[in-house]
């Protein structure tokens, strides 16, 4: 658990961070969002003491970080930045091994851990371990950046716009990969971003900041349904809120049984039982947003649903999707 209490940082009389209090439970990912210059990075960097607060306190599991040795504190907290900051003169394996080495792990254990992380981040060890950072694409480099931060299995990870410099497709893939790893390993994450979509996708909670203050802290759904008037509403953009709400849920909960013969399977394709035309089904894990977009495109009011093996398990009604997006 990370607790920020009345955290304030003053630069030349200006409060870059102003009286911020947050309590982040173990295993959750909290997104810190806001426009550029609102104090997100400053808040984040006070947690691992890269910046000393002007006032207020930070506790990790009840221990005041100001009482800890800064190096020891940082060795126990992963840190990922947009610039990645891989060491250009060290191989990928050596980069990932940085913190374990600083912690004095045995060689064998380090090698095992590096291998494990390379697998976890879909970087074949045989191909990548001995390469140098410049030989990797931006997306691969940032995978290594995250792997390096997770190397010593820190319970806490601080991320400052980690995927901000990547192209949309690579970013989406990394976001999904990271979300899975974070949930599976129950890492507590403070994630700074100015990208609302990213915050909604990854955040268990979203803290919206403006001019050094935290204005609202909410789950993505509640933030969309009950945003504070003013900055928060403007920043999250209410025009898209239905789409965003639909992105938060998967179709799985809306699947209901279909009448026998309503859908037919033929050579892996799904056919409409009445018209005989092929239709694209929804699959497990598809978001309601994807289903909605297909319903509109096909100008229909029902879609077949298949399981992971591609067999029809039921159908999804448009009305049920619409219900999710309404107030």
């Amino acid at each position, binding site marked *: 658990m990370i607790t920020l209490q009345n955290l304030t940082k003053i630069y030349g009389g200006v409060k870059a961070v102003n009286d911020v209090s947050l309590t982040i439970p173990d295993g959750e990912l909290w997104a810190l969002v806001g426009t550029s210059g609102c104090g997100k990075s400053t808040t984040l960097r006070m947690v691992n003491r*890269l910046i000393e607060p002007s006032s207020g306190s930070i506790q990790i599991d009840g221990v005041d970080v100001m009482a800890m040795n800064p190096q020891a504190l940082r060795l126990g907290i992963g840190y990922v930045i947009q610039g990645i900051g891989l060491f250009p003169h060290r191989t990928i394996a050596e980069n990932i091994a940085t913190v374990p080495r600083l912690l004095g792990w045995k060689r064998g254990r380090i090698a095992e851990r590096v291998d494990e992380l390379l697998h976890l981040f879909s970087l074949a060890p045989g191909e990548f371990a001995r390469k140098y950072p410049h030989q990797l694409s931006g997306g691969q480099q940032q995978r290594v950046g995250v792997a390096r931060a997770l190397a010593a299995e820190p319970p806490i990870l601080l991320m400052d716009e980690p995927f901000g410099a990547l192209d949309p497709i690579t970013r989406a893939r990394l976001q999904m990969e990271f979300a899975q790893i974070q949930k599976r390993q129950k890492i507590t994450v403070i994630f700074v971003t100015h990208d609302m979509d990213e915050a909604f996708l990854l955040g268990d909670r979203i803290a919206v900041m403006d001019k050094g203050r935290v204005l609202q802290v909410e789950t993505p759904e509640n933030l969309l349904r009950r945003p504070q008037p003013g900055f928060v509403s403007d920043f999250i953009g209410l025009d898209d809120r239905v789409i965003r709400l639909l992105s938060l849920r998967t179709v799985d909960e809306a699947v209901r049984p279909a009448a026998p013969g309503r859908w037919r399977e033929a050579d892996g394709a799904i056919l409409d039982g009445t018209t005989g035309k092929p239709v694209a089904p929804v699959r497990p894990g598809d978001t309601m947003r994807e289903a909605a977009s297909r319903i509109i495109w096909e100008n229909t009011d029902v879609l077949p649903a298949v399981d992971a093996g591609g067999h029809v398990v039921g159908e999804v009604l448009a009305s049920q999707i619409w219900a999710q997006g309404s107030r």
Partner: protein
Amino acid sequence: MIVGALTHPGAPFSMNRLLRDRVGLLCFAFVAIGTVALPFLAFQPNRILSGVGYRLWQLPDMWLGAGSALLLIACGTVSLTVPDQRLKALAASVGLVALLLSASLAASTLITPDKPLARVSLGSGFWIALFGLGLLVTNALVRLRVRPLVRIALVVLALAILLGILGSGVARNLSIMREYRTNHDVFWTALGWHLVLVAGSLIPALAIGLPLGRLGFQSRRVRRVLIPVLNIFQTTPSIALFGILIAVLAGLIAAWPGLTRIGIHGIGSAPALIALVLYSLLPIVTNTIAGFTGVDPAMVEAARGMGMTRRQRLFQLEIPLALPVILTGVRIVLVQNIGLAAVAALIGAGGLGTLVFRGMGQTAMDLVLLGAGPIIILALVATVLMDALVDAVDSRKR
């Protein structure tokens, strides 16, 4: 075409490629002109009488002269026309050895026991051909991108061959080698002192310059003061700086006569070393600053966030990554001081400059050459070695 037969079988001879190689053509022209058109050696009946120039083919020993000329041109032609850079370098290197040997042997045919006072010095043809062949070798080696260790080995090999030829005595009748024999004690002392001046100024310059450079990197205010001051030293002509230092030291010694007891005198090596150190500071400081500036701040920041201490960041990241640029500064200083140390002879600091200035005073060009030749060789060797070192420590994989 005859030259066609000399080229690599895999890569057919191409007139176009040949014509595009402007540098190669120019070098070849130098070799050809030097061996055919210009006097290769100059014969003086004695030190006073003016000399007679001999082109290679005009030598009394027709076979030696014409043979040498043909061999040299053949080496130049092969080096120019083969496509393989390794063969180019090899052919030109053989040419260099042949050049030195033919000059030595030709000198011995001109000097006969009945003319004990006669001197044979190297003529313009020799020097031009030397220049052409030398360029052919370097050009080929540069394109080959030879690995650092191999480059060092090649330099050592070249020096060994040169010293072997000079030491074997074949070249004893060349006037420069005669000059060496009469002055050989002076020569080795001068060479020794020259190295002492260079090393003795480099070490304190590093001890002062590296920390200053780091400081200048960290603080813009330090940088603002430091760079202009060092620039002043750098732009002061060496003679002037030596003069000023003589005056300053003389003043200091007048105030504290005890200084002379620890070996500090107004003239000699003390002001020379001080001047060389001052000249070294700017390149070392600016390259140190540039080296550290080139290190990605995001990387250092990430390292700090991961828990690396200041010391770990400095020694594991910043210094290794800045080292190639810093060493480039050291290379500049080394080559610069090898040259400047020659001027230091004027204020009695010793070194190879002593021979050069004495030779100029006596209009004995061979003595000048005896001083200047090794200075050039030292500078060349330092350049190659330092460049190899820079590449070897370039841990930033590209």
